[in-house]
């Protein structure tokens, strides 16, 4: 009893420390770092691009399979749930805004606010992040001025009024990204317009070129992208040997001579070998006849 009372306090302390450590390790959740971007591709779709990462044991890691709930803020503080989305292996997710919800909003400069939330996740702490933007449109066209093609783009707000003073990028769509055309940026004028001369004829498949105009991460409008396909390029001649029988083609397109000679050699060797194997049978049967 004496010993019990002597060791009781330290033992209880150790037990409590162990339990609290265990509980802490069980409850330890990561803090996700979320970034949001509103992207509108003209005539196609509008969506919120979500990207999430966290500081794991080996530095920053992508937060894969992380579920987000998306809310739209309406009538000041009210939130309407729009749905859920989960990040892929790269920690990215895309939530398509099917209806941007301009109803009940007469103010053309109305700011749309969306809230992206992590809720009740086993691995990550609850978190919220919001994004706000105003509706805008970007139109792109091709003009010819003094025998020179020009790309024109017009940025307008939700009711069609030109937006002045925003910076647009112009480029040619290529397989792995956008090839810049002209300067880094072009500022829209009072008509919300930019004009970019196309001095060079660029190569394109069948002469078709896809020009893109991009409003990149604007504080007010987010990212807006518009593109136009125009037949003003130099046609690329397809020099691919994909359909030919070459040394580097798959088995179905082996050159004929390589089908012919090796197979002739294989047959030339293996037919006598089969006969020689058969000769073993003849030898064994030869004795049987004799006996």
């Amino acid at each position, binding site marked *: 009893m004496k010993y019990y009372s002597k060791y009781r306090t330290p033992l209880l302390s150790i037990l409590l420390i162990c339990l609290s450590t265990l509980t802490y390790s069980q409850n330890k959740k990561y803090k996700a770092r979320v970034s949001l971007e509103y992207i509108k591709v003209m005539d196609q779709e509008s969506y919120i691009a979500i990207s999430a990462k966290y500081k794991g044991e080996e530095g920053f890691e992508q937060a894969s399979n992380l579920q987000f709930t998306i809310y739209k803020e309406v009538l000041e503080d009210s939130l309407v749930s729009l749905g859920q989305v989960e990040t892929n292996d790269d920690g990215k997710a895309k939530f398509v805004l099917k209806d941007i919800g301009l109803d009940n909003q007469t103010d053309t400069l109305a700011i749309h606010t969306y809230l992206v939330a992590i809720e009740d996740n086993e691995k990550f702490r609850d978190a919220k992040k919001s994004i706000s933007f105003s509706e805008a449109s970007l139109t792109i066209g091709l003009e010819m001025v003094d025998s020179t093609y020009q790309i024109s783009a017009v940025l307008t707000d939700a009711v069609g009024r030109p937006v002045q003073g925003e910076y647009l990028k112009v480029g040619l769509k290529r397989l792995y990204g956008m090839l810049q055309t002209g300067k880094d940026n072009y500022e829209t004028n009072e008509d919300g317009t930019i004009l970019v001369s196309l001095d060079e004829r660029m190569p394109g498949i069948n002469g078709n070129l896809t020009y893109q105009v991009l409003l990149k991460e604007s504080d007010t409008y987010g990212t807006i992208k518009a593109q136009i396909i125009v037949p003003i390029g130099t046609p690329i001649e397809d020099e691919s040997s994909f359909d030919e029988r070459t*040394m*580097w*083609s*798959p*088995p179905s397109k*082996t*050159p004929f001579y*390589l*089908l012919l000679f*090796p197979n002739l050699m*294989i047959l030339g*060797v*293996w037919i*006598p*070998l089969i006969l*020689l*194997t058969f*000769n*073993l049978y*003849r*030898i*064994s*049967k*030869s*004795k*049987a006849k*004799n*006996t």
Partner: protein
Amino acid sequence: MNQTYDQLVDDLSPKKFGWKGKIWTAFLVFVILLGVYSYIQQFREGLIVTGMRDYALWGVYISNFVFFVAISLVGSLVTAILRLSGVQWSTPLTRIAEIIAVAAIIMAGLTIIIDMGRPDRMLNLFMHGRLQSPIIWDVIVITTYLFISVLLLYYPLLPDFSILKKRGQGSLRLREWYGKLSLNWSGDSKQHKIYTQSIKLLSVMIIPVAFAIHTVTAWLFATTYRPGWDSTNFGPYFIAGAFVAGAGAVIAVMYVLRKTYQLENYITDEHFDKMGKMLVLLCLVYLYFNINEYLIPTYKSTEEEAVHLQSLFTGEYAALFWTAIVGGLVLPVIALLFPKGRKPLPLFIVAIAVVLGAWWKRYIIVIPTLSHPFLPIQGVPESWRHYSPTWMEWSITLATLAGALLIITLLVRFLPIVPIQETAEEKGLLEMTKITES
């Protein structure tokens, strides 16, 4: 009954292992088991357990594979070429050569599978193989050579199996097996005709296939545009080297077997002398190819070749290179030019040096080239720049070598080392036996 014929059959019949044979076999099995353990690790973890990385993507496995292919060429050398050219003295050596060839080519095929990162996808090689690729040519030619080698080993055994069935020293069960394997051989004129024609055809066929197997193996390298491999001469260079390695292997094995089974009456000093002379000739031919293969690139010294050659002559691989060239080629030639050097024991030592030199020569052909690509190696971990085999690679490689020796050991246990029928015929004992029996 003719006593001399009985004596010959007794002498040449397979014999049970003595204690030395049992220890030797147990040792080989132990080495193989170590290799199997390592291979299981490699199979589970992948090739990351090896020293191979992005640059040295062929390592000790492939150099070992080339060595086995080289050794297997001996089957065609001793068996076919000497048989077709009517050389009588080679009879006691043919079986040894055939056994070595079969063992080596089996292990060559196995080594390729070992080198695969995903051996479970091996069937893809056949299902999706492209005839444009030398690797597929190699697969085809190795399979063909293995088949011919087995046939060339088996055919001359038919009369011997028949003799062993009737007069062998083994158990009843073993003699029953010999009987089955003899395929009812009686030696009548019809059987003899088929037998003779078949062996002749096999001897003719194995020569081009043997040349093809080593040429194609050389093309695996030569069709790759790299310093040290970019040569139109690689096929003949490899064949010359293979003859040297193979002849060395035959001499080494025939010495051990002669000593172990007291075959001095059948494998005589004269055989060693003649094999020694043959080895000198083969070494000189190979030396010529070596000079050709290194002198011209040295003379031209294009930037990449110069870096590669420098690493061989004075750099990282110099010790190995000069040991293989001098110890495995030049010194053997000098030693074998003297009659005393062609006596059994000195020749055995020289043959071992030649075989070891041949093994390291393949290592030197494969590895340094991969360490010197045309594009500079930049921005990679230091360990990628240099290749050195891990202990797992060594244990697996040693296991394949032990595997080849185990196949030879087991075949020697159950097959007559020296052809009984042919030797009896050459000594005229067969006729005497027939007369005595009648």
